[in-house]
């Protein structure tokens, strides 16, 4: 048929439906009349002629339907009719509809919420131009300052970055940015308000160009801003501008003081851009690398050849081959390492062939958060899928019950001429309607759910993830609704296809069919099995969380507080620090309730540390690595870390006393084979330093990283004891380590307004010395556990949800079974069974179903446990206690679900039942 004709046909189908129908009627009636006329002419009376003519015509409605089917896009018309009918049905049974939509909404909503997070954290690219052209120079995550050779390099010093940038033309742009996060104090020049702490990041001049980001207001950085001697400028993030400065239009161009240094805000980044990585508390200020020495003062990293603190990402020219560039850059790296004047040791040289650079796709940013959340999100995704399956099974059961009740309606339709295909289509359309409505409800639930999950996972922090659905999320919800509709709808549709038109004439409501008798229990068993698996999985996750929490971390958090401050921000020089620390300590001890005070570079579980090479006297190797931190007197006592041998760092370890160190058990195990290290010596990298520090004590292992990381060898040196170093770089490094950022306090009982006291103490000593944060040590630990806790809570929620759905499903199916067997029960009771027997009969069925659910669930649980065992902390694939609890929960659910219908069965009047034919 010609396309124009076809189009006209479609138009007529869509818009002339009713008119076309009446035309058909007219035509058919005319046909029958003519036939009747002929018959009348051959001698029959009019009435008889008309009857014969009508009978001869055959199926009137069927013929009409046949004609309608020939219209183009007919399926659309029928689909629309089905939808309208379905809506009418739903309106007439509001309780049923709302329940079903709610169940579906929960199932689809949970999945969509988790998918929103999966999409944002694992799938989405950075909001930058052409992310697929971006490549990161490095294939692993390190933070935040590294020294020495890295093997596969991922952090770079500024000099190394410039070398790579200038020698790799295949990268159209190569940008460098600070790997760690930093806080700076920002104050507007025109008022005297105190400085506020803002998250900042040092970046190269071509940072914004590399990502293809223009300015929302003002301008962004250019290569000019990286020249030494340029005017100090900074770019603010859109969110900071909006939230912290209330979208003040005069910001661009204003002068501000950053750490008391004059800067100008030259521009605002566009909304939606949050930097080079998805992380909580993204940068609020970007500052060119050229000004890092000013801000960091003597702690500057920019001119340190050996301090690798920058991540590097760039935009490859089209057509460039990453593998080739990798090889080229590896060569450049080795050339730089071997340049004249580099301080490679003999050991370093042997390691040289292992130093490589690898390129990885950089469009999704630096991956630290992604890796941290990947496992957890995958687990949640599986859990929500299981919940959705349970919801589908529930829905299928409900629809099955309803379809069986409607079988007469379908028989009538079949008798009127509906084909099998038509009936199946109708059944599917109705289910699809339900599932699409459920999907809409699910979207609303998902938005709320995502917001809650974000709050659980990142309490009090901002993460640039939108809770509102984006296009991929909407498509996902739609696809899920369709799949759900299809899965749940197959059973009623299949029933519909087996409709016998003769059923329309039968009055008995005995709609029992052999096949529907096993489908319902099968679905209930499936639900029980899935619930079992979910509950056991939730149990394992909770157990893992408990295991992590209950570890001995090597310190007490009871009554311990940490105050974070920054002497560098206040402009203290290294030689002034010792006095400051003593002042602080004495003043803080005056606060009533404070029992012990000390200070340190890093505190336990802060995730921060300083790792470097060491040289132990007697061990002639250059490969030893250890982590270190500087601490003040009474540090171990304040924290509650036990000293196992020797003594801790005390007051006597002053700047003039011989330099000493306390090492942890791991240190002893690794470098001394468990023998007592007291009296032995070691030092930072370099044979000549191997006698710099004397070991005076051994502390128990303390976790300074995160709860699931292994303990590394660690040593503690006294705050004022700097070791004289040969090279200027080493000296700067050493001096930098003299800055303590944390004060630790031990209090006897809860001290009211502790923060106010501490702030006033610091304020009195120096008004430029703010307390940036004060929190209990327990909170620092908790921050590490936020993610696990969120997952544990969600898993428990999903497990309970699945169990509730399974219980409701069991209740429904058992009620339905009781109703069906009303006759049978009546007969039994008439024959002498008492109520107890009847209840027993019903509960026996329920019990059998539960046992079957258990039987199927056990191997699934075991399989799930195996997978989880490797990802979780200290759990076994088959935990008897958890399994017992889960079985008990399932038994309880069976009891609740089955008992009410059983009681109802027992209260059946035999005569009533027998009459109910």
């Amino acid at each position, binding site marked *: *048929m*010609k396309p124009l004709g076809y189009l006209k046909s479609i138009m007529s189908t869509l818009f002339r439906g009713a008119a076309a129908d009446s035309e058909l009627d007219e035509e058919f009636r005319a046909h029958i009349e003519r036939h009747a006329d002929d018959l009348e002419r051959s001698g029959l009376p009019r009435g008889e002629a008309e009857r014969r003519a009508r009978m001869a015509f055959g199926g009137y409605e069927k013929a009409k339907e046949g004609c309608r089917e*020939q219209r183009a896009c007919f399926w659309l018309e029928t689909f629309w009719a089905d939808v309208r009918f379905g809506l009418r049905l739903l309106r007439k049974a509001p309780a049923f509809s709302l329940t079903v939509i709610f169940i579906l909404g929960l199932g689809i909503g949970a999945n969509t919420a988790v998918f929103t997070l999966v999409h944002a954290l694992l799938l989405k690219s950075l909001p930058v131009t052409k992310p697929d052209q971006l490549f990161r120079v490095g294939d692993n995550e390190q933070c935040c300052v590294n020294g020495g050779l890295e093997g596969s390099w991922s952090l770079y010093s500024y000099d190394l970055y410039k070398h790579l940038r200038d020698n790799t033309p295949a990268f159209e742009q190569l940008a460098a940015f600070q790997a760690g996060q930093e806080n700076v104090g920002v104050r507007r020049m025109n008022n005297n308000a105190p400085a506020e702490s803002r998250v900042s990041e040092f970046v190269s001049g071509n940072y914004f160009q590399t990502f293809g980001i223009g300015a929302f207001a003002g301008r962004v950085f250019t290569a000019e801003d990286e020249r030494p001697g340029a005017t100090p400028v900074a770019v603010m993030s859109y969110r900071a501008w909006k939230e912290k400065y209330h979208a003040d239009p005069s910001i661009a161009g204003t002068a501000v003081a950053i750490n008391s240094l004059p800067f100008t805000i030259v521009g605002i980044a566009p909304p939606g851009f949050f930097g080079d990585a998805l992380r909580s508390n993204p940068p609020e200020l970007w500052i060119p690398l050229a000004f890092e020495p000013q801000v960091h003062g003597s702690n500057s990293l920019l001119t340190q050849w050996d301090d690798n603190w920058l991540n590097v990402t760039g935009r490859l020219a089209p057509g460039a081959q990453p593998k080739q560039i990798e090889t080229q850059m590896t060569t450049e790296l080795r050339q730089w390492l071997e340049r004249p004047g580099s301080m490679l040791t003999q050991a370093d040289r042997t390691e040289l062939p292992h130093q490589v650079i690898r390129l990885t796709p950089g469009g999704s940013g630096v991956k630290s958060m992604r890796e941290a959340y990947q496992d957890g999100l995958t687990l949640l995704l599986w859990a929500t899928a299981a919940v959705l399956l349970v919801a589908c099974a529930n829905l299928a059961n409900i629809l099955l019950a309803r379809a069986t009740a409607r079988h007469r309606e379908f028989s009538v339709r079949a008798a009127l001429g509906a084909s099998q295909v038509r009936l199946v289509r109708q059944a599917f359309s109705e289910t699809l309607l339900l599932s699409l409505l459920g999907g809409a409800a699910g979207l609303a639930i998902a938005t709320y759910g995502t917001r809650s999950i974000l709050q659980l996972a990142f309490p009090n922090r901002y993460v640039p993830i939108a809770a509102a659905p984006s296009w991929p999320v909407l498509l996902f919800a739609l696809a899920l609704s369709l799949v759900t509709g299809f899965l749940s709808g197959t059973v009623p549709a299949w029933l519909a296809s087996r409709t016998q038109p003769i059923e329309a004439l039968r009055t008995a409501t005995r709609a029992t069919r052999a096949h529907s008798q096993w489908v319902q229990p099968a679905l209930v068993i499936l639900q029980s099995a899935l619930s079992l698996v979910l509950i056991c999985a939730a149990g394992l996750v909770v157990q893992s969380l408990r295991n992590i929490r209950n570890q001995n971390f090597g310190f007490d958090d009871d009554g311990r507080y940490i105050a974070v401050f920054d002497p560098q921000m206040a402009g203290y020089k290294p030689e002034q620090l010792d006095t400051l620390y003593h002042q602080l300590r004495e003043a803080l001890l005056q606060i009533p309730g404070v029992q012990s005070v000390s200070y340190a570079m890093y505190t336990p579980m802060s995730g921060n540390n300083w790792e470097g090479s060491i040289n132990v006297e007697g061990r002639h190797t250059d490969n030893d690595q250890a982590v270190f931190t500087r601490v003040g007197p009474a540090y171990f006592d304040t924290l509650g870390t036990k000293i196992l041998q020797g003594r801790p760092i005390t007051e006597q370890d002053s700047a003039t006393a011989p330099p000493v160190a306390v090492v942890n058990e791991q240190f002893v195990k690794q470098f001394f084979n468990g023998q007592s290290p007291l009296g032995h010596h070691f030092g930072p990298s370099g044979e000549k330093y191997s006698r710099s520090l004397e070991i005076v004590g051994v502390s128990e292992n303390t976790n300074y990283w995160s709860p699931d990381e292994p303990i590394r060898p660690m040593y503690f040196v006294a705050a004022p004891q700097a070791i004289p170093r040969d090279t200027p770089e080493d000296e700067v490094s050493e001096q930098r380590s003299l800055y303590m950022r944390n004060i630790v306090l031990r209090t006897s009982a809860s001290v009211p307004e502790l923060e106010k006291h501490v702030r006033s103490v610091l304020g009195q000593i120096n008004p430029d010395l703010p307390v940036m944060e004060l929190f209990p040590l327990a909170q620092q630990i908790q921050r590490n556990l936020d993610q696990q806790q969120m997952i544990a809570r969600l898993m428990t929620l999903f497990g309970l949800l699945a169990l509730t759905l399974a219980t409701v499903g069991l209740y429904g199916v058992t009620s339905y079974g009781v109703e069906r067997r009303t006759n049978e029960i009546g007969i039994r009771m008439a024959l002498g069974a008492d109520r107890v027997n009847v209840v027993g009969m019903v509960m026996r069925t329920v019990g059998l179903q539960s046992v079957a659910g258990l039987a199927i669930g056990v191997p699934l649980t075991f399989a799930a446990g195996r997978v989880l065992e490797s990802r979780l902390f200290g759990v076994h694939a088959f935990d008897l206690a958890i399994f017992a609890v889960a079985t008990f929960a399932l038994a309880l659910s069976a009891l609740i679900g089955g008992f009410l219908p059983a009681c109802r069965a027992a209260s059946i009047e035999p005569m009533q039942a027998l009459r109910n034919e």
Partner: protein
Amino acid sequence: MNPPADLLPGTLDLLILKAASLGSLHGYGILLRIEQISHGALLIEQGALYPALFRLVRQGLLKASWGTSDNNRRAKYYELTTAGRKRLREEQDGWNRLVAAMGSVLGAEPEEA
């Protein structure tokens, strides 16, 4: 009169096209004409006629138009289009070939030993 023969599937369209080729007719008329020219050997199920007519209209082989019939009633008249005429010729040729082939197969005698 010959005993009525069962209609082979697919031949209804051919019959309708042939009947319509002999002049513009309404549905009942087509029915009558088929019965007439087959001398009563082919009886069409009345209900199946109209969907077939609609199908042929959609395929562009027939053209339908409303008009007044002989007894002043409104009727829908069907007539053959050019494409319909062509299809009729093709189907007729195909049918004749089939009949010839079937005939020669069915008329084959057993071979003499």
